[in-house]
């Protein structure tokens, strides 16, 4: 197989996600409406509570990060979800395709959508709440976004793994996992206020480190971004490996057939 053939296998997931998204009016809700509503709500709450600019930056960073994470992870989860909903999983998995083709292709689309959401939300938060998203410099933004996309891809893969292991009813994981992230990784509050066991759990989640890194540009203490990126990469590699194992397991158990019926 030529490298162009391999690239096109990767691009197949990007292509499918792009076509389905552009045909679906609700994509706009996913991409603009809900992230925007989230940002405005949180921003207005800071106004109501009359908090300082540093606190506004703290919570808006969290709101923006959560929106990007949700968008990008769902794009990776869509590699199975779209097929699951149209009962066409079989068509994908009788083809000579591997897990990484699907994940990288979907991730590419997730990155494009994630960057678009980031730009929209950053512009809106600057205009409405005076939040300067470039205070830490362009490199900070790039590292933060890259880490978020890698983390999102891992979450998306966990959704796919859940579906392959437990069947269609596990698709709820697509909306649940980012909620759990919100709770324990300090999206709207510092993780230091979490109960002890949850603080330990928060240290195992890359988003915690990414948020600390981005917020450090606004005067919120130290960060351990290298550790965060390393954990994110480790999870990414592990998720990819487990996804491939889950695909093979679904072939053994017959789940692959049941998901197509």
């Amino acid at each position, binding site marked *: *197989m*030529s490298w*162009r*053939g*391999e*690239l*096109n*296998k990767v*691009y*197949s997931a990007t*292509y*499918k996600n792009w*076509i*389905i998204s552009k*045909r*679906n009016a609700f994509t706009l809700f996913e991409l603009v409406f809900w992230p925007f509503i989230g940002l405005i709500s949180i921003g207005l709450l800071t106004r109501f509570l009359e908090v300082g600019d540093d606190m506004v930056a703290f919570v808006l960073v969290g709101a923006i990060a959560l929106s990007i994470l949700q968008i990008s992870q769902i794009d990776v989860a869509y590699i199975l979800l*779209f*097929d699951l909903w*149209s*009962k*066409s999983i*079989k*068509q*994908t*998995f*009788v*083809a*000579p*395709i*591997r897990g990484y083709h699907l994940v990288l292709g979907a991730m590419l689309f997730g990155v494009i959508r994630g960057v678009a959401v980031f730009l929209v939300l950053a512009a809106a938060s600057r205009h409405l709440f005076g939040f300067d998203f470039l205070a830490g410099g362009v490199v900070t933004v790039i590292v933060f976004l890259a880490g978020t996309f890698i983390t999102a891809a891992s979450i998306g893969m966990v959704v796919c793994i859940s579906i392959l292991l437990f069947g269609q009813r596990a698709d709820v994981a697509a909306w649940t996992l980012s909620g759990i992230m919100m709770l324990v990784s300090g999206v709207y509050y510092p993780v230091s206020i979490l109960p002890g066991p949850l603080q330990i759990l928060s240290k195992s989640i890359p988003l915690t480190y990414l948020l600390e890194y981005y917020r450090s540009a606004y005067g919120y203490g130290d960060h351990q971004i290298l550790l965060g990126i390393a954990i994110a990469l480790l999870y990414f590699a592990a998720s990819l490996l487990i996804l491939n194992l889950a695909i*093979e397991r679904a*072939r*053994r*158990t*017959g789940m*692959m*057939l049941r998901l*197509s019926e």
Partner: protein
Amino acid sequence: MPALRAEKITKSFRGLFKDKKVLFDISLSIEEGEIFGILGPNGAGKTTLMSIFSTLIRPDGGSLEVLGRDALRDTHAIRERINISSGNPNFPWSLTVRENLRHSAMLYGMYGRSLSKSVDEAISAFELGSQSDAKFETLSTGQKQRVSLAKSILNRPKILFLDEPTSGLDPEMAMKTRDLIKRIYQEEEITVVLTTHYMPEAEELCDRIAFLREGRLVALGTPAELKRALQIGHRIFVNYDGEIDPLKLRIIPGVMEVRELPGRVEMVFDHSGRAVSSIIKAFEGADILDIGIEEPDLEDVFLELAR
């Protein structure tokens, strides 16, 4: 070298309380260039076997060679050279016919002009030109079936698996689909493995047939071999006017079954030749209005084997 060789393939599916075994020691060999049918009643394991052959799912036990490769290890290389089309097919709903075919071609690593050419050829071969920009969800059952068949030839497979390709189609569309299958088979010089419920279809298309019942291979051979092996009798019907003694028919050597209807008798007999003259003699005293003899068909084989 056979296109496919299966040895003692077994498969179970996990149930709530215990596993359900759906295939028991299936062994068969499919030669290159033949159209091979897998028949059997509902629940016989046809689709499961087809899914194993096409590497979609893995067997629990046994060995499987496809195109000379070990299908349990070299799955990726095998998938490059096979394809499958299923009855009642599904593709992403909101993609058009052309987009679905492009997406499928990408999954097979096609690119550039060869991708576009293959998609155009598939659209043309299955007369999907006027629907090429229609979303999959808006197509009729027959059109969806044709999209599935078009997708199955994109990568020019060496083995084409067709799982109930005419399922849910009206007779005219089913006939067209069978013609398309014959055309692909002839033009592409490939091996075709198909499952069907419809016996005339199997009789029309298949060189050899494997018959499954409750997960077991109960017969294997050409349609003619199966009929001979099962000693399925010929059918004779006689329409008559007058009175006859049915007992005289039942005692004729070679008559296996007699069914009486008003003014008509239907019988099954072995084709010894002497039975026919004896049957006609038994109608002495009545006027024979019409008489006909039918050879057994695959439907009879199916009914016999499904019992």
